[in-house]
């Protein structure tokens, strides 16, 4: 078995047993990162990674993550590596500090090999809004990897790294995980510090793991959760994250969200999800239909709230304290020209939409109403979780779509997140696991739970993953 075929947990075990070294692992993965057949990376830190690998190999006792390589979404600040958030606005930007979640992983012995491609400022569902390049889906190079964390998802599916970090505002971890046939998790809002995550929509943004197994996702999550004095919304995490061990789902009640199984969901996706629901029953759980009447209003609600928050968050990008301004004779012209020229089309669209929704005369009709619909969605999830332990739905209404297919129609692109957005609006944890193929492309199953139910969610996903035995290796991938 090639080193790149080992899961992260297996790599940790091999390192602790002295069967390999961190340098050997880092070199094996860096070769694939540097070749980058799927264009997943925006920056590579080969020298830094090798140096840290040697340092960890020289330690008398290995730290918990033992010197295993990892890739980081370019939305997360890394002091030593250029961070662009996929935007020309931050071309060449070297942050002055490292994001808390990345720092915690480095302190635990993870080795950052590079930064991954993404939709500009995390706005998009295909990674085609990156100002730099398109990332290819490892299962079919003519198709998108999903987004916005497309580079992080593709790098794990392609086995360039065993795991990676993404960020999820409306589905940006779960949807690309589904499209690339891997595991992706968005934890409860506040589980992981957002300090150092370049902000998109602060009431929704969460960092989370990509991996090829649920166990690896749990292992990564374990080292990131918990309160951070630098993020006032971060939470204590008593008891921590436990590694999943469940082999059945006996006694569990799983609700199937009716609104997310109907029109708009591709037949092949429905078939794969239906067969995994059967597997859930076979593992001893009771599967019941659940209605979330406002779930489908989530998309419209999200496309008011997220742009409104982004229009405010992205006000800081004016080319003065970082970035490179377009020179002008007076300050206002410089602001407008810099932002007009350096933001890409989707970012400008969202800033405009959000500014409109917050503008005097429109605020009550749009932002005000969207915040109230959000309350309805939160309440409907609360009511559902009085009856069931978990909710199941497709992660994405379709499998990976061809590159260029939706770039001309913004709303068609927005629809890619119709199944993931309601969970985000409610701040709840959810995981996507690969559950089958449709037309040779991976389908993701989304499992969501009440706030702070991460351990049960991971345990259930782990039992189901074993039963489904999905092969995460894309066709033709040589490791």
């Amino acid at each position, binding site marked *: 078995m090639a080193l790149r075929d080992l899961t992260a947990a297996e790599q940790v075990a091999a390192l602790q047993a002295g069967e390999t070294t961190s340098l050997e692992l880092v070199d094996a993965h860096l070769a694939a990162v540097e070749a980058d057949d799927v264009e997943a990376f925006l920056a590579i830190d080969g020298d830094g990674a090798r140096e840290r690998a040697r340092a960890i190999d020289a330690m008398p006792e290995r730290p918990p993550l033992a010197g295993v390589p990892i890739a980081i979404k370019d939305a997360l600040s890394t002091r030593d590596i250029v961070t662009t958030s996929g935007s020309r606005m931050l071309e060449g*930007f070297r942050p*002055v500090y490292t994001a808390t979640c990345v720092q915690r992983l480095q302190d635990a012995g993870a080795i950052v090999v590079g930064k991954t491609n993404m939709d500009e400022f995390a706005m998009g569902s295909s990674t085609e809004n990156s100002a730099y390049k398109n990332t290819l889906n490892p299962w079919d190079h003519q198709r998108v990897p999903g987004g916005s964390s497309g580079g992080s998802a593709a790098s794990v599916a392609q086995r360039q790294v065993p795991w990676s970090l993404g960020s999820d505002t409306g589905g940006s971890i779960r949807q690309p995980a589904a499209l690339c046939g891997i595991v992706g998790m968005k934890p*409860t809002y506040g589980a992981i510090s957002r300090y150092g995550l370049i902000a998109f929509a602060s*009431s929704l943004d969460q960092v989370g793991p990509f991996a090829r197994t649920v166990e690896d996702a749990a292992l990564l999550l374990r080292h990131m959760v918990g*309160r951070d004095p*630098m993020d*006032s*919304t971060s*939470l204590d995490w008593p008891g921590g994250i436990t590694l999943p061990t469940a082999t059945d789902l006996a006694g569990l009640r799983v609700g199937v969200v009716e609104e997310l199984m109907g029109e708009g969901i591709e037949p092949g996706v429905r078939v794969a999800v239906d067969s995994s629901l059967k597997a859930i029953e076979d593992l001893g759980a009771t599967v019941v239909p659940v209605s979330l009447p*406002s779930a489908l*209003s989530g998309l*419209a*609600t999200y*496309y*008011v709230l997220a742009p409104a928050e982004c229009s405010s968050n992205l*006000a800081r990008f*004016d080319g*003065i*304290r*970082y*970035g*490179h*301004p377009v*020179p*002008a*004779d*007076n*300050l*206002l*012209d*410089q602001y*407008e*020209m810099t*932002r*007009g020229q350096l*933001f890409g089309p989707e970012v*400008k*669209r969202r*800033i*405009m*939409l959000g*500014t*409109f929704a917050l*503008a005097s005369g429109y605020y009550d*009709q*749009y932002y*005000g*109403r969207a*915040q*109230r*619909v*959000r*309350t*309805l969605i*939160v309440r409907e999830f609360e009511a559902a979780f009085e009856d069931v332990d978990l909710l199941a739905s497709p992660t994405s209404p379709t499998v990976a779509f061809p590159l260029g297919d939706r770039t001309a129609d*913004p*709303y068609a692109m*927005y629809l890619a997140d119709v199944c993931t957005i309601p969970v985000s609006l*409610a*701040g709840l944890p959810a995981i996507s696991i690969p559950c089958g193929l449709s037309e040779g492309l991976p389908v993701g199953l989304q499992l969501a739970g009440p706030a702070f139910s991460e351990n049960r969610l991971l345990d259930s996903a782990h039992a189901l993953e074993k039963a489904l035995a999905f092969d995460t290796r894309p066709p033709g991938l040589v490791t």
Partner: protein
Amino acid sequence: MIDENTVRHVARLARLRLEPEEEKVMQEELSGILEHIDAIRSMDLDGVPPTTHVLALENVLRADVPRPSLPREEALREADDVVDESFGVPRMD
């Protein structure tokens, strides 16, 4: 449907300089997106309060003790124009 003047007004508020051709495309695209969003304007929301935060979070505050701040040269490191140990900007008219 939003008109050209609204697009220009909003672009000004957002500090975005749009080319004339961009303004036209923006007007069409925003109008198209708002058609879908308008669904929430007809929903019955009587008595439903707005969400302020999804979880009952308690603010995390650090201890109120002085600590070193970012050194000036680090804070200025990424700036395009540094004047007298400060960020340089063009004049404000």
